[in-house]
């Protein structure tokens, strides 16, 4: 694999601006809320800018790992502070930057315990960034947990519906996942005999016996899969989505679930390709079930956020399906879908957040006729919903398209099932749109204000991103391919 050292430590700079923001917030007196918000907005904006720079500066022709920073951390254990970016992680970094920034803006009106909220939020995102950019198993695990444990307080303190139950469930569930990841990681470390946690050295073929790979892959897949909302282990995610405050839901559905899928890709698939090939069918079946199942359960929901939660179960199923087709297209589609779904679901939650803050209800039957009252807000939601349906011209379409093509090539029957789910998804998404926004003007909320320009900014950004990548997907596919194609070509068959 090609390694391109960084001329400037952009990645550390991203982490640093997160940590710096965290410290800055910690040292601002809690009374000075507006300053805290400004600080957090500016620091998150900095990360967004940096990730954009990365996205632009990444040499697509060269491919491989770029912006490499490699510092020995615990030599005796072969742990390195090894940050790098490749075609898989770059879109996710960009995604994180966008969602982070917009998430901060979305929660601008929140006034309770602002300081703690933003501090924990920064901690959360630090973990996410770190995980996406780290190439060292130890650090990946560390970042994974760093991004998990703020969730409990974030949900339990600032959340809404059944928040303590949801928070506890989510935290325990995800830590159960990490309970499977850590042994697998250590197993790989020990069995490699190289005394290193670095992914690059561990990737060399023939390092692990097929047996080890199967075992480790299963553990890792289950561990990370829980976070990715793989079918039987998905129940934490709708509950968590619903309970969490909107900004956190955005990060949570938009980025955290991607961490799961990314972990499967980065750790499980890259280190245990044989295990991947061995378990691929299982993955595919679970993913297909998740797709159709999530859509059907979504049909029954009466809570806006529950609907979104189940839709993301379904959409993450598409990601899983892409990962399970042992092909480069599959990987491309999966990563693209991660990005697209992240943006889309963030937009959904952001709009729901606005609506909820005004109407103080998420129950679909109580809503309705909002489109007349807050046309702009509902437009944002509808755009996101359409993206979720997979309407061409918005980013999600491409991810689903490529994944379906790949899946149809590898597992025709599952591909058919997954494609059928499209109709169901359309049904329930449109149902929600109709019940929430259409219908006669709802007098109960008649005097509520519409989104002002300033409030609209985060949603505008997200919608614009959806549109841009929907119109020229090549922007992203070019990047992803630099990672997927060499990886697949180097795969032992």
């Amino acid at each position: 694999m090609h390694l391109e050292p960084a001329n400037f430590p952009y990645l550390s700079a991203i982490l640093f601006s997160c940590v710096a923001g965290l410290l800055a917030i910690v040292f601002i007196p809690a009374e000075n809320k507006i300053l805290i918000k400004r600080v957090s907005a500016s620091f998150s904006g900095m990360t967004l800018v940096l990730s954009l720079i990365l996205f632009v500066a990444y040499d697509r022709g060269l491919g491989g790992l770029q912006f490499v920073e490699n510092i020995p951390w615990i030599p005796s254990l072969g742990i390195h502070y090894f940050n790098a970016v490749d075609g898989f992680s770059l879109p996710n970094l960009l995604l994180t930057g966008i969602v982070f920034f917009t998430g901060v803006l979305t929660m601008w009106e929140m006034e309770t315990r602002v300081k703690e909220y933003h501090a924990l939020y920064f901690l959360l995102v630090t973990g996410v960034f770190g995980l996406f950019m780290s190439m060292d198993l130890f650090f990946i695990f560390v970042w994974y947990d760093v991004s998990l444990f703020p969730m409990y307080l974030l949900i339990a303190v600032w959340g809404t519906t059944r928040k303590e139950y949801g928070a506890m469930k989510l935290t325990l569930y995800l830590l159960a996942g990490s309970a499977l990841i850590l042994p697998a990681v250590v197993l790989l470390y020990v069995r490699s005999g190289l005394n290193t946690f670095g992914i690059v050295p561990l990737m060399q073929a023939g390092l692990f016996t097929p047996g080890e790979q199967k075992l480790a892959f299963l553990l890792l897949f289950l561990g990370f899969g829980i976070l990715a909302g793989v079918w039987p282990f998905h129940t934490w995610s709708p509950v968590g989505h619903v309970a969490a405050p909107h900004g956190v839901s955005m990060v949570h559905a938009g980025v955290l679930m991607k961490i799961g899928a990314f972990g499967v890709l980065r750790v499980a698939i890259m280190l245990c390709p044989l295990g991947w090939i061995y378990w691929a069918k299982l993955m595919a079946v679970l993913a297909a079930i998740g797709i159709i199942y999530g859509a059907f359960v979504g049909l029954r929901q009466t809570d806006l956020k529950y609907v979104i939660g189940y839709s993301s179960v379904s959409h993450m199923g598409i990601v899983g399906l892409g990962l399970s087709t042992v092909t480069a297209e599959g990987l491309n589609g999966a990563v693209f879908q991660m990005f697209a779904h992240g943006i889309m679901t963030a937009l959904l939650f952001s709009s729901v957040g606005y609506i909820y803050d005004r109407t103080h209800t998420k129950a679909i039957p109580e809503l309705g006729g909002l489109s007349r009252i807050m046309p702009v807000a509902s437009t944002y939601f509808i755009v996101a919903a359409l993206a979720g349906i997979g309407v061409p011209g918005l980013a999600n379409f491409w991810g689903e398209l490529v994944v379906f093509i790949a899946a149809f090539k590898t597992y025709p029957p599952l591909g058919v099932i997954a494609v059928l789910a499209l109709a169901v998804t359309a049904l329930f998404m449109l149902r929600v749109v109709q019940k929430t926004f259409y219908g006669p003007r709802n007098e109960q909320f008649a005097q509520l204000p519409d989104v002002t320009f300033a409030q609209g900014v985060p949603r505008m950004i997200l919608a614009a991103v959806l549109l841009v990548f929907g119109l020229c997907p090549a922007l992203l596919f070019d990047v992803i391919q630099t990672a997927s194609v060499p990886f697949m070509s180097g795969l032992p068959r």
Partner: protein
Amino acid sequence: MKWMIAAPEMYYFSAALWFLLLSFSGKPRAKRENMTALGLAAVGVLVCLASVWSDGYLFIKAFRADMFSQVFKVLLSLGLFLIVCICGNISEIGERRLHDFYFLLFTCTLALMLLVSADHLLSIYISLELSSYSLYVLVALRRDPRFGLEAGIKYFLIGTFASAVMLFGMALLYSAGHETYLTKMTRALAEIIDQPMVIIGLLFTLGGFFFKLAVFPFHFWAPDTYQGAANQVAAYIATVSKVAAIAVIVRVVAFTGQGSTYLVHALVMLSVVSMTVGNLAAIVQKDLKRLLAFSTVAHSGYVLIGILALSPAGYTGAVFYALALLLMKFTAFLVLVALADDGRNIQIEELAGLHRRSPILALALMVSLFSLAGIPPTIGFTGKFLIFIAAIEKGYLTLVIIAMINVVISLYYYLLVIKAAYLLEPITEPAPLRVSYPIRLLAGTSVAAIILAGFAPYWLIQVAQAAV
């Protein structure tokens, strides 16, 4: 001057005697005694640090000073110092008793140091008894006699019972192997280690130390004793004596248990049961100290994993874990002591609204609990990580998975505590909490230490490796 290798012991001996003499003199005054003790403990830390490199034998090889023991002495002295730091307003020990209190505290530390570097079964036994007895008295010293007495009796009876078991075990070992020096036991036991009598003897012998470490089934004293003893004493038991126990178990197992698969089986069972029992029982606790006691039981289970790997990596992990336990448990108790200004027991719901009443304490509590749960980037995680590496190197994957599941369970009750501190609002607004500046400083430092040692543990690991 070869006596210098015993410098720490002599120092603490004289310090203890000094308090003994004081106790015959005038009436103690809390502030002054605390200051004296603080000074003495601080100097003690320095002494131990100074004698880290000393190496050699004393008393016809009954006393052995090497890197291992000296490092642990540093830990012990550090622990004592920290404990003395939070003894500022120790209201549960009558002011009249303060001299005895500090005398016992220092004696116990001395005993633990002797225990760490004792090399002869007899000296191990005697030093263990010395430390245990000082702890019995310390526990019973609590002013509220209902608690103090009951805790004292339970601690005393189970302790002596365990020590009798241990003695019998030693007798078995001796009668089977004719060796009483740990260093020679490896050779002596090599060929007969698989005889049931020897293993039973070994296990009985370890029983005494398991009692100190509160491993199932010798853990039964822990919850009641923690709950019944004064907060500071409980803190001392939870931190310092645990460190010594880990040290002596590592040493004994390392010297005697080599190549015995049955012993490993036994240890596996005990560790699994300990962590499961500890974590499960902790879920339903209301009293914070009791909860911490059960979590101690669980942690003893984790430590055993590192020890039963019977490999240098495992011992390194155990040593590192000793330090981790010291820090984490101390931080938790620090919060507890700072909250219980009148020395009462803290119920979990009393933590309500802590995040407003004292953010720094709430933070310290959260960090220490997450560290106890083993969440990175805290020292608790690093300790577990080292131990798990050692275990998986020996192929105990299932054991590690069980341990991780236990970690998840444990997180549940830690989160309940954190929830109390951060979510719940007190029904009746309690008296405003006055946290003295030094305590705040201490809390901040320990939080920083936990996180830094978890995030950049390199040189600490080096030290642990050097010690083994």
